[in-house]
């Protein structure tokens, strides 16, 4: 089922001459997990801001669940599309971590018991229980990031958009986040991740969209994209190490299946 439909989307910021987004056409089905990749300034963040109506197209349409974002308020759209922005400082504002996570729940009219239950479960999931009464602004970068993600996941939006979610996370936290996203996928959520972190993208997404200068220059299977050296070069992206290894081995006459996305899959393949 088509959940997101973007048709002939052009977007230009006020007072700018150039279009930041140029003729974007894109359909995302319910339950898909997509990674959006591209260099800085390619329009990734501008694109996702169209999904909950923070930005409205200069030309063209963005349709979420069959409804045009031009006819909906940000509040209405946010119930369906939860966006976690790159810099948590732009998103956090409450006095305590507890209030921060409950903010959306209160606004969407959840009852008190439900709010308490959901906030508690988020605090636990993101290992934030000890900071419940702390100011979110005094936490470390990684902790703020977790609060920002929790404050969106708590109200259970259908579409979850994460902008550079791994920045500032250490190995454990990153692994936890990968598991959380994998579980959300099992629940049937639609996930969109904007990231530079290919290894992370390969763990959580099947589809890859590459943006450059506001245009989609590639849309396809992520595992194929990591071997497409030309496109990666064009988009200023660094080829993941696994793909480099497999390509280098091929040059040396050792041909392995190119469908491996993770270290574990590589080892399985080789040990066989």
């Amino acid at each position, binding site marked *: 089922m088509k959940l997101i439909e973007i048709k002939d989307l052009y977007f230009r910021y006020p007072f700018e001459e150039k279009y930041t987004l140029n003729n974007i056409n894109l359909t995302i089905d319910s339950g898909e997990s997509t990674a959006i990749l591209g*260099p*800085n*300034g390619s329009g990734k963040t501008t694109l996702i801001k169209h999904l909950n109506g923070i930005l409205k197209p200069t030309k063209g349409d963005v349709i979420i669940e069959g409804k045009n974002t031009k006819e909906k308020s940000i509040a209405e759209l946010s119930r369906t599309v939860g966006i976690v922005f790159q810099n948590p400082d732009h998103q956090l504002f409450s006095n305590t971590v507890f209030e921060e996570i409950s903010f959306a729940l209160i606004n969407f009219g959840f009852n008190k018991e439900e709010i308490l239950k959901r906030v508690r479960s988020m605090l636990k999931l993101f290992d934030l229980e000890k900071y419940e009464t702390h100011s979110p602004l005094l936490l*470390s*970068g*990684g*902790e703020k990031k977790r609060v920002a993600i929790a404050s969106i996941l708590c109200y259970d939006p259908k579409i979850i958009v994460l902008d550079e979610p791994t*920045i*500032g*996370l*250490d*190995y*454990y*936290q*990153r692994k936890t986040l990968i598991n959380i996203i994998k579980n959300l996928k099992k629940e049937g959520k639609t996930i969109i991740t904007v990231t*530079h*972190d*290919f*290894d992370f993208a390969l763990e959580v997404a099947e589809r890859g969209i590459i943006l450059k200068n506001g245009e989609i220059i590639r849309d396809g299977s992520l595992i194929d994209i990591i071997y497409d050296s030309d496109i990666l070069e064009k988009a*200023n*992206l*660094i080829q*993941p*190490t*696994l793909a*480099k*290894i497999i390509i*280098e*081995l091929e040059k*040396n006459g*050792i041909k392995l299946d190119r469908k491996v996305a993770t*270290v574990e899959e*590589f*080892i399985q393949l*080789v*040990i066989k």
Partner: protein
Amino acid sequence: MKEVIVIKNFSFRYEGTNFFSLKDINLKIFEGDFVILAGPSGCGKTTLIRLLNGLIPHFYKGEYKGEVSVYGLIVKDRKTYEMAKYVGLVFQDPEDQLLSMTVEKEIAFGLENLGYKKDEMVRIVNEIIKLLNIEHIRYKSPFLLSGGEQQKVAIGSVLALKPKILALDEPFSNLDLKSSYNLAELLNYLNKNLKYTIIIAEHRLDLLINYASRIIVMNEGRIILDGPPREILSYNLEEFGIMEPKISKISKLLRKKYNFDICLTLEEFVNNFKKIYEINRN
């Protein structure tokens, strides 16, 4: 080799917390070292960096036990600006340390405050701009630059004071991968060609592994491993919350079954792999 940083029996607890962020640290850093301080969030790596120029205890107060000396100076007894001649600090988010109207002024800022003469200032600023290859953004506002450019300018403003040690706290956090690789190469150049001692707190090893001379692993305020990269990579670092470089991780997994060396570069890996492949085919 000359000892440039000596930390003896050191522990530190931030005011307002009830636990020690650093515990029983004993550490010597030598001139020309390129050290990665690795460990998960909260392991104490940022705190350790803050000791080096006296941000702790002058700016961040708390219980300070033991001794930290840099080039023979007891850091606690010196002013932070005095220490700035020895240790330049670069933070995670360059916006935390940028404040001037143009890149050129940003680089001159520290020199101006230390009362350098104008022609001397101009000479140093030109030298830094050339070194970092940032002539094209010289008159731009630091706040309108990309993350990678901002981080370069932050480094430039620190290098202008001609410190002997460059200490960086997760400088890649806000950079994309390509800019991160560029910055890693710059640090390598500063270390190998200009003889800076470099200490960098970072939980990802892949960017720096080929440049570092030493990895120090921290956990819960203590140093738990300290040695050359190849030796440290033979441990299971993921257990300590550190992301391992893919190549060494795969080598280690292959080692369980084959006679495989721990590799750091793609070239080493492919050569090793070819050998194993030939043996197992025959």
